[in-house]
């Protein structure tokens, strides 16, 4: 772990900022575990694991409240400026995004309960293929983002932005395939709705992962690159010009 600060005349101040970093990493680790567990539960149709995610969600919320309290305290007592201010701002926003990632993991767990708790037929492997693919992509992006936060090294930020481009493309493709499945067999509608909600949650986790990387870039350099990494999106080709893009905007 790279310590965000050192050398302050008031040693305790460094301790407080480094403590915040540790708290954020603890939260990141918990959230990553939540995402992994919910995806494993989905793969194994494991209701026990899904419920475990839902039970643990309050821990993520508790960490968010604790971190926010400490951030308010640092601002009130230390009046951070320059890099210290950027650390506090970046950590504050990071914590909000991590909590939302936790929410999305819990949302997936809830959907798993809905999908597999009843006696209804389970979705086919063909329907679930895109979910697992997107799950792997998102997990990798989140791991990478947390690695960037841990090492406070923004060099890999662009890689995450590229991952987000890939994820968005996969999301659009998945929606197209789901529509096809529904058109082919109307009995797929129920499963398609659940799967749409899951892939939307995964797409959101990808967005949050990209945000996390952007905050580290701001912390390290002072450059606010929000909404710039998004411009790495590939130009829309003729095949992509369909109504799904418009429908995506509605989410």
């Amino acid at each position, binding site marked *: 772990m790279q310590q965000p600060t050192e*050398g*302050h005349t008031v040693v305790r*101040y460094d301790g407080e900022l480094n403590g915040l970093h540790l708290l954020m990493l603890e939260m990141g680790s918990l959230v990553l575990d939540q995402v992994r567990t919910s995806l494993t539960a989905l793969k194994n149709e494991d209701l026990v694991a899904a419920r475990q995610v839902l039970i643990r969600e309050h821990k993520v919320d508790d960490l968010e409240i604790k971190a926010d309290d400490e951030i308010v305290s640092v601002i009130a007592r230390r009046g951070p*400026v*320059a*890099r210290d*201010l950027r650390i506090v701002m970046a950590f504050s926003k990071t914590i909000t995004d991590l909590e939302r990632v936790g929410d999305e993991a819990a949302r997936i767990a809830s959907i798993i309960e809905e999908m597999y708790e009843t006696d209804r037929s389970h979705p086919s492997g063909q329907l679930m293929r895109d979910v697992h693919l997107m799950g792997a992509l998102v997990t990798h992006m989140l791991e990478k983002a947390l690695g960037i936060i841990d090492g406070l090294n923004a060099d890999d930020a662009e890689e995450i932005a590229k991952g987000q481009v890939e994820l968005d493309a996969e999301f659009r493709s998945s929606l197209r395939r789901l529509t096809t499945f529904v058109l082919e067999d109307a009995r797929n509608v129920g499963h398609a709705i659940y799967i749409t909600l899951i892939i939307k949650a995964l797409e959101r986790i990808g967005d949050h992962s990209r945000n996390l990387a952007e905050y580290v870039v701001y912390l390290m350099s*002072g450059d606010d690159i929000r909404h710039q990494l998004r411009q790495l999106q590939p130009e829309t080709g003729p095949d992509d010009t369909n109504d799904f893009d418009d429908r995506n905007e509605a989410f």
Partner: protein
Amino acid sequence: METIDESEVSEINDAGVTDPVKVGHTAMVDRDNRTTIGEILVDNPRMSCRDVNVYYGDNHAIHDVSLDIGRNEVIAMIGPSGCGKSTFLRCLNRMNDTIDICKVTGTITLDDEDINSKKIDVVPLRAQVSMVFQKPNPFPKSIYENVAFGPRIHGLANNKTELDEIVVTSLKKAGLWDEVKDRMDQPGTGLSGGQQQRLCIARTIAVGPEVILMDEPCSALDPIATAKIEDLIDELRQQYTICIVTHSMQQAARVSQRTAYFHLGDLIEVGDTNTIFTNPRHKLTEDYITGRFG
């Protein structure tokens, strides 16, 4: 490379990053790498300083400082003790002339006129570029006389009515009128510290300055009196140019539009206050304002 007396020094490496280096009692400062970062120029400046050097005998206190001071702006000068910020401030109205061993070189202009020119009379200059000091120093006279003294000796009023008007206006501008209007004949020294400082500011305003220099004007005041002075500085900016030296980072951030950071006699960085306090470009500046000055 030159030698400066300092117990702890900083050495600039090739990347422009400063590492604290202990070299006994001698500071080795590579002057070649201490070019000011940031925009020293402003449009239509009130004052312009170019290549200002100040020597106290053999001690070279300020090195080639160039800086414009804009109209109706508050510029804060910050830096550790002994960095030369007060010395530089005192150059702006030739207060250093009062120190025998002090020599100032370079050019300093006020409205394009060289203030160090032989034809400049230093007395009216110090009315144009007046100064408020760290400790309130009212004259041992009445409140009225404290403010009236300057306009009277500078011949700014033709009669008592005009003088009264200047006194009242100055006290109002200094935000003190309501508190003293019923006791104008009482001694200025009987006011509280904050009121005394505002009286000194009223005394400064009374001589019609263009630039007001403030050398740590709130360091002897409590937080409420400090807040009143800071509020006043913001008001005064509408009419005057203000240069303030302060040790309080937060005060510099609160009151100024531009900030200049001095270190060991060099102007290290100057820029928009928001930028200096959120994303300073020089490590020395960042280390100082975040409290990591080593």
